[in-house]
């Protein structure tokens, strides 16, 4: 059974991902120190913390960009051994980036179609012939992509090159690309950075809808505390690469260590 299938068979509310005692450093600089937490199937799990707390590093460990010097990552019940990011995609983990990483030479549609990569199987020969299986596969995946386009309400920009889109829409297209992979675990790196209130509301709605409609488990990094507390089920708090809090939004909000970190007391 592949990791994706294993992940799919996990019950709602059971452990989907667990990181144990993760430590990561770059040339002596410690980015993460002994961080452990878990993500349950079907929840929205937020990672918060001040700038430089190691949030993005944590996401990069989860999706295989960084390989921690110490610690274990368990996904869908099995331990991972330094996989490449593209293997991780096939296991059902998708993500978006803090600084939008779209394919600027392509249209919205093509960007999201590219997100279907792991679901397309036709080999080069079939592609070269096109008529038949390749075209059929293309059309089938297009149908899926159109559902996502419809879901994200971006019909009007379907054929627009993404480079020409305003920031907020680019963010949405990037979410679309991640959704197109039909991920089991979706990692969102500051999905609302740089957005105005209205765009943030839209994005929050989309995130919650993703959870409801597709049953996707979501792990997100976000700076806007209001948003985090509104949409997440549980929150991990990192500071200086260490975990200083973990719990429901209410628990975290009232945790003295967290309050100190955010007010800067702890490091005075």
């Amino acid at each position, binding site marked *: 059974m592949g990791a994706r299938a294993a992940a799919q068979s996990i019950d709602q509310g059971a452990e989907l991902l667990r990181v144990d005692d993760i430590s990561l450093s770059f040339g002596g600089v410690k980015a993460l120190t002994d961080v452990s937490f878990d993500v349950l199937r079907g929840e929205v799990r937020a990672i918060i913390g001040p700038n430089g707390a190691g949030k993005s590093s944590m996401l990069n460990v989860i999706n295989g960009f960084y390989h921690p010097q110490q610690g274990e990552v368990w996904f869908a019940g099995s331990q991972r051994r330094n996989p490449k990011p593209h293997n991780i995609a096939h296991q059902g983990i998708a993500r978006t980036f803090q600084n939008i990483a779209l394919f600027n*030479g392509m249209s919205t549609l093509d960007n999201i*179609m*590219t997100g279907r990569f792991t679901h*397309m199987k036709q080999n080069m020969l079939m592609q070269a012939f096109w008529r038949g299986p*390749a075209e059929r596969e293309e059309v089938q995946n297009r149908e899926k992509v159109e559902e996502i386009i419809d879901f994200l309400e971006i019909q009007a920009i379907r054929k627009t090159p993404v480079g020409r889109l305003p920031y907020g829409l680019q963010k949405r297209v990037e979410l679309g690309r991640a959704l197109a992979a039909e991920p089991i675990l979706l990692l969102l790196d500051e999905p609302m950075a740089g957005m105005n209130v209205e765009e943030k509301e839209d994005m929050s709605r989309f995130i919650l809808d993703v959870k409801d409609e597709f049953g996707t488990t979501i792990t997100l990094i976000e700076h806007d505390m209001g948003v985090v507390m509104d949409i997440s089920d549980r929150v991990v708090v990192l500071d200086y690469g260490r975990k200083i809090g973990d719990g429901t939004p209410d628990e975290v909000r009232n945790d003295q260590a967290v309050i100190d970190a955010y007010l800067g007391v702890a490091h005075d």
Partner: protein
Amino acid sequence: MFYRQAGDFKTTYRGDIQTFPLRQDRIAYYLMLAFAFLVVPFVINDYWASAVLIPFLILAIASLGLNILTGYCGLVSLGTGGFMAVGAYACYKLMTAFPDLNMMIVVLLAGFITAAVGLLFGIPSLRIKGFYLAVATLAAQFFLVWLFNKVPWFYNYSASGQINAPERTMLGFEVTGANAEPAVSYLFCLTILTVLALIARNLTRGRIGRSWMAIRDMDIAAEIIGVNPLKTKLSAFAVSSFYIGVAGALFFSVYLGAVEVGEVFGINQSFLILFMIIIGGLGSIFGSFAGAAFMVLMPVLLKNIMVGGLGWPTDIAAHIEFMVVGGLIVIFLIVEPHGLAQLWRVAKEKLLLWPFPH
């Protein structure tokens, strides 16, 4: 202005993703194909075949190939000449080793052999990008030319060090050698080009093409989506080299007939093909054609004007040609980095919007 897209709507995705979604484009395309296959062979003469049409067809294949690698996958190669040489020598070895082999098969096999060599030289692309990679391909260029020069086995130990294409037939018509009819050579190349162009279009429009472009545009994001960078880059190298190899084989066997490797497949050939795709348009099938046509026609035109019209010596014409080519490259990079294809796209957009400006 001439476009009437109103009422041209799509009821299926198949209709939406076809190569020419506009009805008028489709009609123009079929008319062009019919003209190329049904009219040109009957009016073609030696001059047009050897000066314009056949080099255009063959170089269009090469530029399609390089465009797949550079335009679609974002990997700049300066080794095109070297890979064309691989195609040419593979073709020569196959023609001489298996005299009865169908010429079409020879050319395709030459392409596959070049693909294999391209794969080998593509391996560094996993670790290096940009002009670091360009330098690596330059290594391939020099090494390959040296190899074909220095290892006599490749030129069957001939005294001149040259390779000469023996006469071979295709469906009873001579395609190669001194007695080949221009119309036959033309149709042979045209058929191969048409098929390869369709395949290029098919590859670039689907999963593989998108993975190439994803690597080109943002390799980190591509990886996150599940695109294996090594496989993808190597596939681009292989496909690209296949095209270039086929072009090299045709360039040698159908077009020139005799080849001295350093002269024909030197670094300048690499640049010429690179210029074709820059002028034509990176990442565009149409651009490959436009660039090849431009780079083939422009010297002919210049020569006709300066040598034929004004009576200047040929070396002056050649120098001016160099200047024009170099100048155009710089101008295109400054003014329109996406080349003729972009100009065409913009013109088409304008025509679609006509009389409105936006």
